[in-house]
C-alpha cells in the first residue's frame, strides 16, 4: 500500500491526508501557518497509529497478530494488553446488545454480499453458518484489572471454524487512538488547539478550530454518494455513523440492511438507513450507532434514551 502523507494549509488550519483502512483519512490541525513542522509531525503520529492498528488487526493479512490468533484454533492463547482491552470492549458490547453486537458474526459475509444486487442467500446457507457464530462460544478470560483499571492481557480460545472480526470497532478505535497520541505528543502550549481525526467518516476531535468555531462535518447521504446530506458541527468528542449507504441488497422492493443480526443470520429488520451519533469518544459513538441500528425499528427510541445527540436517516 502506498503510505504517503499530504499536508496542506487550509486558510485557518492544516489539513493532513493519508489512506488507511480502505478509506480516505484526514487530520485537521488548528495550528498557525508557522507551525508547519509541528503539523507534519502530528500528522505522522496519527497516520502511523492508524496504519499500526490496521496492520495488526486486518483480516486480509497473513503475517499479523490477527492471523496468528486464528492459526491455532481450539487452543488457549495469550493475548496482549491492547487486544485484551478490545476483546473486553467487544464482550461488554455483546452483553449490552443482548448478543446482537458480535465480533464473531463476520462469517456471515461469506453468504451475504452487499453489492446492491438482489442476490439473497438461501436460508440453508445462512443456517449452516450459525453454529460457528456467537461470542458465547469463545473462551475469553481477561486478566483482572489493576489498581488503575489497566489490563495486562488475557487468555483466548477461538473454536475451530470461528473467526473474529475487528472491523466493527477498528476504525473508531483507531480514530480515538490517533487523536490521543497527538494529544500526548503536542506541546502544552498548543494542546488547546483543536485536532480532528477523520477516518472515512469516523471522527475524533479534541477541540474547536481557530476562533472557537466548531469543525463542520459532512455526513454522506445514503442515496447520493459523495453528497453531504447532513452538515454537522463538532467541537469536541467523537462522531460515528453506522449505515448502509453503499452496502445493501435490494430484493422485491425490499432493502436489506448490511447490518446482520448474528442470532438469526439475517439483516436487522426496519433498521434506519443510517445513524450518526456524537459521544465523548469515537468508539463510543460507533458502538451506540451500531446498537441503534441493531434495534431496528426502535432505533430512535433507543437513541432518545441514551441522551446522546444523534441523527437518523430513515429508510
Amino acid at each position, binding site marked *: 500500500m502506498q503510505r504517503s502523507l499530504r499536508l496542506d494549509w487550509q*486558510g485557518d488550519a492544516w489539513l493532513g491526508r493519508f489512506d488507511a483502512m480502505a478509506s480516505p483519512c484526514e487530520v485537521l490541525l488548528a495550528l*498557525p*501557518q508557522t507551525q*508547519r*513542522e*509541528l503539523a507534519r509531525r*502530528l500528522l505522522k503520529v496519527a497516520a502511523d497509529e492508524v496504519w499500526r492498528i490496521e496492520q495488526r488487526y486486518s483480516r486480509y493479512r497473513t503475517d499479523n497478530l490477527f492471523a496468528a490468533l486464528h492459526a491455532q484454533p481450539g487452543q488457549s492463547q495469550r493475548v496482549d*494488553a491492547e487486544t485484551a*482491552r478490545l476483546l*473486553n*470492549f467487544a464482550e*461488554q458490547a455483546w452483553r*449490552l*446488545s*443482548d448478543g*446482537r453486537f458480535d465480533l464473531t458474526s463476520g462469517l456471515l459475509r461469506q453468504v451475504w454480499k452487499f453489492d446492491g444486487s438482489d442476490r439473497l442467500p438461501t436460508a440453508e446457507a445462512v443456517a449452516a453458518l450459525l453454529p460457528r457464530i456467537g461470542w458465547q462460544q469463545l473462551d475469553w478470560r481477561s486478566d483482572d484489572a489493576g489498581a488503575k*483499571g*489497566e*489490563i495486562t492481557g488475557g487468555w483466548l480460545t477461538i473454536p475451530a471454524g470461528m473467526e473474529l472480526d475487528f472491523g466493527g470497532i477498528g476504525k473508531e*478505535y483507531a480514530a*480515538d487512538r490517533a*487523536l*490521543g*497520541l497527538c*494529544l*500526548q*505528543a*503536542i*506541546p*502544552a*502550549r*498548543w*494542546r*488547546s*488547539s483543536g485536532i480532528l481525526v477523520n477516518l472515512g467518516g469516523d471522527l475524533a476531535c*479534541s477541540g474547536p478550530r481557530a*476562533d472557537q468555531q466548531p469543525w463542520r462535518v459532512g455526513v454522506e447521504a445514503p442515496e447520493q454518494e459523495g453528497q453531504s446530506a447532513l452538515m454537522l458541527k463538532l467541537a*469536541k*468528542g*467523537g462522531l460515528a455513523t453506522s449505515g448502509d449507504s453503499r452496502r445493501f441488497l435490494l430484493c422485491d422492493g425490499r432493502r436489506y440492511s448490511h447490518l446482520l443480526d448474528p*442470532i*438469526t443470520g439475517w439483516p436487522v429488520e426496519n433498521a434506519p438507513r443510517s445513524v450518526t451519533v456524537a*459521544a*465523548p469518544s469515537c*468508539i*463510543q459513538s460507533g*458502538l451506540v450507532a451500531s*446498537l441503534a441500528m*441493531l*434495534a*431496528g*425499528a*426502535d432505533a430512535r*427510541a*433507543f*437513541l*432518545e*434514551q*441514551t*441522551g446522546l445527540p444523534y441523527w437518523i436517516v430513515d429508510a
Partner: protein
Amino acid sequence: MKSDTSLTRPGAALGASLAAIGCAVLQGLPNQAMAGELENWDFDAAVLQYTESNDRVEATEAVLGATRNFDSETSLNFKLTLDTLTGASPNGAMPSDQPQTFTRPSGRGSYTVEAGDLPLDDTFRDTRYTGNIQWSAPLGRDWSYSGGVHYSTEHDYESRGGNASLSRYFNNKNTTVTLATSLSLDVLTPEGGVPVGLSAMAEPGSGSFSVDFDASRDGKEADKQVTDVIFGVTQIINRRSLMQFNYSLSYNNGYLTDPYKIVSVYDTAGGTLQGYRYEQRPDSRLKQALFWQGKYQFDGGDILDGSYRFLFDDWGMTSHTVDARYRWRFGHQYLEPQVRWYSQSAIDAYQPYVTSAQLADDPQALTADYRLGDFDAWTLGVRYGYRFDEKTELYTRLAAYRQMPRDFGSDNSSDTTPADAGDLPEMTAVMLTIGGRF
C-alpha cells in the same frame, strides 16, 4: 425470539456503562474529555558555563523556567536565573614595563600586576539572583498583549522593572505589528562607595591614602533608569518563510559609569605612567537599533535563520552584527551550526589611556573599558538537540567567542592616544550550555 424492546431498555443504562467501557478500551491514552485536564505546564532548564581564557571571568548560569499554558495564546511564565561570576576582569589600565599596584575597589588593600601583564582586577566575584514573571494573552481576535515584571539582586546592584507589549494582527495573522516598552530602575552600591568620576586613584601605601581615598568617593549608591521602546513587524511570507523587522530605542540615564574601571594617565602618548583616574561616562545615552531577521524552512524540515543588526548611539558608537545559523534535522536529532560576526566602533569618550595634557583640558567623559573600544568579534557555535517527543528535548551548545581589538588613534592627532591593538585587551571565551525542555 427476543423482542426489540429488550434493546431499548438498556438505552438509558447504556449512558453509564458506555463511559466505563469507552474509557477502558482507551486505557492510558489522553482522550477528548480529558484533554482540558492534562498537564498544562511546560518546564525548561539550562546550565551555561562561560569561561574566558587566561584565568579571566568564569561564569555559571542556571535558568529554570515554568510556563502555565491556558491555551495556545494565553500563558503565565516564571523564570528564575542564578548567575555566579568569579575570576578577574581588565580594570582599564594599560600594561606597563613596570609592576603596577592598584587600590582595591573597597579601599581595603591592594593588588599588584606583573610588568607586561594586562592589569586585571581579581576581586571580581558575584552571585546574582533574577526572577521574571510574564503574562501573555489575546485581546479579542486581532490583538494580543503581554506584561511582566523582573527583579534581580546581587551584592552591589539591584534592578527592578516592568514591561508591556501590544500586538495587532493583520491579514489573517500573516502580519504582526508589535509595540513593546520596558522600564528598569537600577540601584548601584559599589564596593567602597561610588567613585568620583575622573578623580585620582589613591596610591596604596601613601601617607595620605585614607584622605585621598575618601576624596575619591561620592556617597554609597547611585541609580540609573533604562527605558526601551521597540516597534516590530513580523511578516509571514509563505508557509516556509517569515521575516521580522524591528526598530528599537533605548534611553539610559543616571549613573552609567562602571565604578570599578580606571584609566592610566601618562605624561605624553607613549611616555611615563603618572597614575590612574576613575573613569567617567556621560549620564545619558540614547541607543537606536535596526534589526532584520529572516527564516526559511526547507522541505526536510531544515531551517536557515539569518539576521543583521545595526546599532548607533549618541556616544558615537556604531555596531554591526551578522548572524547565521542552519538547523539540520535528522530523525529525532538536530544539529545547528552558528556563525556570528560583530564589529563596533569606539565611543567618543574611549581612550586606551589619557595624557596629562588631555586631562588638563577637563574632559567631561573618559573610559578605557575595552568593551567600549574599537573591536571585532566572532562567535562560532554548534548546538545539538535530541527530541524524545514533541515536548521533551535535551540539547547542548558549544560556542567559542573571540574579541579582537583594532589599532586605536593611528592618525596620531593630539586629542587621541594611539595604541597598538596588541597592547589592548583581547579575549577568548568558551560557552557550554546544557539544557532541556519537558
